[in-house]
């Protein structure tokens, strides 16, 4: 220590060395009242991981029940609650807030060289709203469960189900506000708080994807809010809007619901695409190929996402003309998605690729999103959808997109940014084992379901025909491998907190701004406000020479 210079290689003076946002203040209260986006991001991270664990347990129970064609471990009503809670927990507690609210909250200000998001207190309010919503949803579990499916279709949800639908939907309603406020915060932050020199086209592409996501959150979520409010009033006071016996229209609910929930699909996938871009760029050691194409395709997906909700309703009884228009528009989501795919490959071309743990997740993302995206074409085709709608083919397709793409990108991002967030390196070998089991288990579980689906196996079936049993059992075995993979990943990450080596500021040799401060960052993010002089992913001249 004798010959330590006053300023280290990152320009940190001795005063801030050893200080970071984690040890600045201590105690539970300092966390619960914090307005630091990094701490809020960490609290979101812990919360969404709990949500993921909860949804995962329900998923394993559902798969276990489907091991045999008749009763295995639970009765039909318990099974219906299990798949409902699996879906609701995964969608509302995990995927929607997962990347934006945890990784996004933590890294968005860092990546644009800001000290915080535009409205730090509003950010904390979002977290509290998320918790309050989650409590209502958990309350529904202990006060009778929910058995409507995560889509809450009427009239079953409004009149027939005897479970705690109101508590669950109210929870989702409250969480909607959390989502809106986070989106609003991000949009304003990106507009107003970019560091000097950080022009729009110098931003890392993760931020473009978060920007597109935020637009959807702000524009679509209010419609979910009003829909759920109407559903709650329908159930509590029989206002009749959705009740056919009172002149209401159950199909209207589906229109309202999917007007939000289809864009919500892109709330889930766009951030995943952004994370994948960061991972691929960092580990290819080169500038992203087709920066503007990737950036604009995110925005294009966000805009098109508002025009395609009717493709969930080809067989719902909506007019034939609507179905034809929705099908046509649906295919145009494929174009920007394809453009992204090609540009990611372009980024690998001519790079210097390292197979770090995050990179493995990044490549798995390309593989799984390829399958998830391409199988979407089947469902967009009007005639083919007649056969595949509401079968296991749909289940397999959206798990490839939601879990295979978003969740894999989320865990990739977690491994990518873990050293920055916690200041610890994890055990790479164990992380690779966790990854391998997850990847194998995932394909094992869900590729099987494509076959089940085309053979006619309907969704949400407790009992099923004996002929589907071998494939169902095969899928269930896969789910155990998948579960084990995640368990190992969790153990690996948790262990690193205790035994991990201290992380350097930039372990992956990444070019983006968040790596230019220490790990973990200080509360103010940067000791000196950064001034950006390089393009996105560009490295200083002596490095690239």
């Amino acid at each position: 220590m004798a010959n330590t210079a006053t300023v280290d290689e990152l320009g940190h003076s001795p005063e801030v060395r050893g200080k970071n946002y984690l040890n600045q203040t201590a105690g539970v209260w300092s966390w619960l009242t914090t307005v630091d986006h990094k701490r809020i991001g960490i609290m979101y991270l812990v919360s969404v991981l709990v949500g993921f664990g909860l949804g995962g347990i329900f998923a394993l129970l559902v798969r276990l029940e489907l091991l045999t064609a008749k009763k295995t471990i639970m009765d039909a009503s318990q099974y219906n609650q299990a798949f409902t809670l699996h879906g609701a927990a995964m969608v509302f507690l995990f995927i929607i807030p997962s990347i934006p609210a945890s990784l996004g909250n933590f890294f968005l200000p860092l990546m644009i060289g800001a000290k915080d998001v535009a409205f730090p207190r509003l950010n904390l309010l979002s977290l509290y709203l998320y918790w309050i919503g989650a409590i209502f949803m958990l309350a529904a579990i202990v006060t009778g469960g929910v058995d409507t499916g995560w889509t809450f279709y009427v009239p079953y949800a409004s009149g027939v189900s005897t479970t705690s639908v109101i508590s669950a939907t109210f929870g989702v309603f409250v969480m909607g506000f959390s989502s809106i406020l986070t989106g609003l915060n991000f949009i304003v932050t990106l507009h107003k708080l970019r560091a000097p020199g950080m022009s729009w086209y110098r931003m890392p592409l993760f931020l473009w994807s978060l920007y597109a996501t935020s637009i959807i959150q702000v524009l679509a979520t209010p419609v979910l809010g009003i829909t759920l409010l109407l559903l709650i009033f329908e159930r509590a006071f029989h206002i009749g809007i959705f009740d056919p016996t009172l002149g209401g229209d159950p199909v209207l609910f589906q229109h309202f619901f999917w007007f939000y929930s289809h864009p919500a699909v892109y709330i889930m996938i766009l951030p995943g695409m952004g994370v994948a871009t960061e991972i691929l760029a960092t580990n290819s050691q080169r500038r992203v190929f087709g920066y503007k194409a990737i950036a604009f395709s995110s925005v294009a997906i966000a805009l098109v996402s508002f025009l395609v909700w009717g493709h969930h309703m080809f067989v719902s009884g909506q007019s034939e003309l609507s179905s034809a228009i929705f099908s046509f528009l649906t295919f145009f989501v494929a174009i920007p998605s394809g453009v992204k795919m090609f540009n990611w490959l372009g980024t690998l071309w001519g790079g210097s690729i390292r197979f770090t743990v995050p990179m493995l997740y990044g490549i798995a993302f390309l593989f799984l999103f390829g399958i998830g995206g391409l199988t979407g074409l089947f469902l967009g085709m009007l005639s083919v959808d007649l056969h595949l709608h509401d079968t296991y083919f749909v289940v397999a397709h959206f798990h490839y997109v939601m879990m295979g793409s978003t969740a894999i990108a989320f865990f990739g991002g977690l491994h990518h940014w873990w050293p920055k967030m916690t200041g610890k390196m994890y055990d790479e070998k164990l992380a690779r084992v966790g990854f391998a089991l997850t990847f194998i288990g995932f394909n094992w579980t869900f590729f099987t379901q494509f076959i089940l689906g085309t053979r006619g196996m309907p969704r949400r079936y407790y009992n099923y025909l004996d002929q589907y049993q071998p494939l169902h059992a095969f899928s269930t075995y896969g789910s155990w491998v998948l579960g084990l993979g995640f368990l190992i990943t969790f153990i690996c990450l948790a262990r690193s907190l205790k035994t991990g080596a201290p992380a350097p500021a930039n372990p992956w040799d990444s070019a983006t701004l968040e790596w230019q401060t220490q790990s973990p960052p200080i509360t103010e993010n940067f000791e000196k406000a950064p001034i950006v002089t390089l393009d996105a992913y560009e490295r200083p001249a002596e490095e690239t020479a």
Partner: protein
Amino acid sequence: MSAKAEALGGAEETKLSPQFHVAHHFDKADTQFDAGRMGVWLFLVTEILLFGGLFCAFAIFRSKYFPSFVEAHHHLDRVMGGINTIVLISSSFTMALAVRSAQKNEKKKTTLLLAITLACAAMFLVVKYFEYSHKIHDGLLPGGNFTAADFASGHPGIFFAIYFMMTGIHGVHVVIGMGLILWILLRNQKNEFSSRYYAPVENVGLYWHLVDLVWIYLFPLLYLVG
């Protein structure tokens, strides 16, 4: 912030400093002010979409049950609705003036104008209360609770479902708006606003104009057109 305040030597100077009320993560007061206003505008967009769902439902059911909507809307009190429209537009006007006087450092005038705005909002709710109790008395209620007998067309309950949902959610917004106006009124009393810092007044004003605007669409659609 506190160090700066001391350096400037007292509370008065602090308020006149361009850095007054600037949070640490903004580079200057203008950025913070712009950011706040942008946030509020975005929030107003979400509000419009929230009501947008109900306007869609209105349009769909109106085309489906046109005779019933025509018949049902005759049961709404146009006079009361009209009074409320005038009351709300006046309150928007006084709100706008309040923002202006806050900008001009006219504290007492601001207080007075905010108080008038509050009074108008309260009057709106009182009129709404009489309208609601009249409807409840006549059994003109949503869907399954509809009990009024002398209707020739089917499904008037749907009209009243939409009426109560739209005016009810609007009413909740009026109540929230009153809370916000009261909040800035109290802050104004504590000398917190000046020509250098009046963002909360302006932002609450924007919200209040939206509440007014929604009613300006609700009134003709529900009371006049049906």
